[in-house]
């Protein structure tokens, strides 16, 4: 018994401490190193942060290069898949484009109005600038859903910067290096987004499922009955982590343990992302504080300038919408003229046709009279033996012929 325990201890000690001829470090040393690194990386020291950033930069670039062959295979696979569904997609896109075009004008006006109102509420003018970022690493780990983009603190990316695919929200930045950043996708289990569900106007939190969808969490009890399929989920802006009004996905119901559950189908397909937009927001206060400047005139002028700016913006919105309406009016006028011209030409055509018809009727009556005249003319004609007859060519004669020779009406 004691001997077997000794053997175990010897084997363990040997495994931990014994270095083979080629090994430079014992495994015990490496375990200690690992533990120290794990503990240090959880602490937020400046030195550790910078060294981590350097390691990240190097590893992300290397990973991008190493991933080239696999990405090539992946892209080829997706391309082949796309070609098979190309025509159906084209038809669907054409129909969608038509409907989008019709909504475009009114949306643009609403957008301008919204922006103006938000600026008024927040008391600052926020100007956002979306920069294009390339995804350099998108290894879809089964445990963590994140991507690496090629923009970092050099490009004003901060922790929390919102990331978009077109105008759809994709996630937010959780780690920033000098020229790269890590983006936590909405599908990650650790992602929580405050949202509004329209048209019911219900507030909720969407969290990632670890798969391709999101889950509705923290919804007020009783409100879940109001949810319906295809409701639109967009950011509510609560907590100021995400910008408000950004579309995320659509609501879909499914059965789970005989209860109705809801999931969010994201508009954007995170596995197909190649480029994304990072929104850099810069805020300029409208109301400057008195401490910031001693000049009273400047104090008075700044709010005035801001208001003037808002009014100018308003004016430009109105002008722009007026231009659109004018353009639309002109189009409508030319359309009316065209239609009037068409109506006129159609009227002319109708009258000429009417004339032809009446002529045709006249000719038909004349023909009928001539035919009957041949047969019954002698009965109606006034002659030596027929005193009751009529003079040829008179209306009475014609009537008599049409009545087939009957003289008495």
């Amino acid at each position, binding site marked *: 018994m004691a001997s077997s325990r000794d*053997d*175990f201890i*010897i*084997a*363990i000690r*040997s*495994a*931990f401490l*014994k270095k*083979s001829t*080629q*090994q*430079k*470090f014992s*495994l015990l040393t*490496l*375990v200690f*190193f*690992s*533990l*120290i*690194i*794990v503990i*240090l*990386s*959880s602490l937020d020291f400046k030195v550790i942060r910078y060294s*981590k950033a350097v*390691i*990240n930069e190097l*590893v*992300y670039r*290397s*990973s991008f290069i*190493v*991933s080239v062959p*696999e990405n090539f295979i*992946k892209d080829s*696979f*997706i391309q082949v898949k796309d070609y098979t569904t190309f025509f159906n997609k084209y038809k669907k896109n054409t129909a969608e484009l038509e409907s989008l075009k019709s909504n475009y004008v009114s949306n643009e006006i609403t957008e301008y109005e919204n922006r103006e109102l938000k600026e008024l509420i927040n008391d600052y003018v926020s100007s956002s600038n979306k920069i294009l970022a390339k995804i350099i*690493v998108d*290894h*879809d*780990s*089964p*445990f*963590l859903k*994140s991507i690496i983009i090629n923009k970092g603190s050099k490009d004003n990316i901060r922790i929390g910067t919102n990331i978009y695919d077109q105008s759809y929200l994709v996630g937010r930045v959780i*780690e920033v290096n000098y020229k790269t950043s*890590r983006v936590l996708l909405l599908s990650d*289990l*650790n992602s929580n987004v405050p949202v509004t569900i329209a048209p019911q106007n219900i507030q909720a939190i969407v969290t990632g499922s*670890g*798969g391709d969808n999101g889950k509705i969490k923290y919804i007020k009890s009783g409100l879940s009955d109001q949810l319906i399929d295809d409701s639109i989920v967009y950011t509510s802006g609560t907590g100021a982590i995400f910008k408000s009004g950004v579309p995320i996905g659509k609501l879909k119901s499914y059965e789970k343990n005989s209860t109705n559950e809801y999931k969010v189908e994201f508009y954007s397909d995170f*596995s197909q992302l190649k480029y994304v937009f990072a929104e850099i927001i810069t805020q300029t206060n409208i109301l400057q504080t008195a401490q910031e400047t001693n000049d009273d005139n400047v104090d008075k002028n700044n709010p005035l300038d801001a208001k003037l700016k808002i009014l100018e913006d308003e004016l430009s919105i109105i002008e722009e919408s007026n231009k659109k309406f004018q353009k639309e009016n002109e189009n409508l006028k030319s359309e009316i003229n065209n239609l009037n011209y068409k109506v006129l030409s159609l009227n002319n055509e109708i009258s000429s046709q009417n004339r032809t018809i009446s002529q045709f009727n006249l000719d038909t009556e004349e023909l009928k009279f001539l035919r009957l005249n041949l047969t019954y003319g002698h009965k109606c004609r006034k002659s030596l033996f027929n005193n009751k007859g009529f003079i040829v060519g008179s209306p009475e004669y014609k009537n008599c012929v049409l009545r087939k020779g009957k003289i008495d009406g």
Partner: protein
Amino acid sequence: MVSLRTKGSFLKLYSWLPILILYISVLNEFDFNYLNLEYFSFNFPFILIFFFTLKDFKHFDYILVFIAGLFNDTVVGLPLGLSSLSYTLICIATAYLRNITIRPNPMKDWFYFLFIISLINSLNYSILTLFFSFDLILMNYLVNTFFTFSFYIIFVSLFKYYLKGLND
């Protein structure tokens, strides 16, 4: 002379191939996610490290394995040092198995591998959830462990061919 030199450099590259593949696999994070197989994943570095450290392969330096772990953490986004710890623990487990084994048995190795990866994945899961407050799906870990265990035997046969080629 030239052919001998070429042959020499090729042999050198061939003998460093396992460590090279380890680095490629941690940097590339082999996945087949575009196949849209739900839950499907396996941990290739675990198989590679287990096999080659068990065979005490001379070019499979522990420090290089340790650094590969750091790379893996950076790519996947795990706390730095966690994968290094996992990889080092595999090395310890294989060193222990080597010490206590007189007559190697592939089946015993295979089930020992299952025990070790289950232990390490449990440790990872516990550390991430308890100390780093990560939200994780346990099912993913279980499926990952299952597929890693299943694929071990396939990869082992390939690695044996490699070793045979090297000895020849």
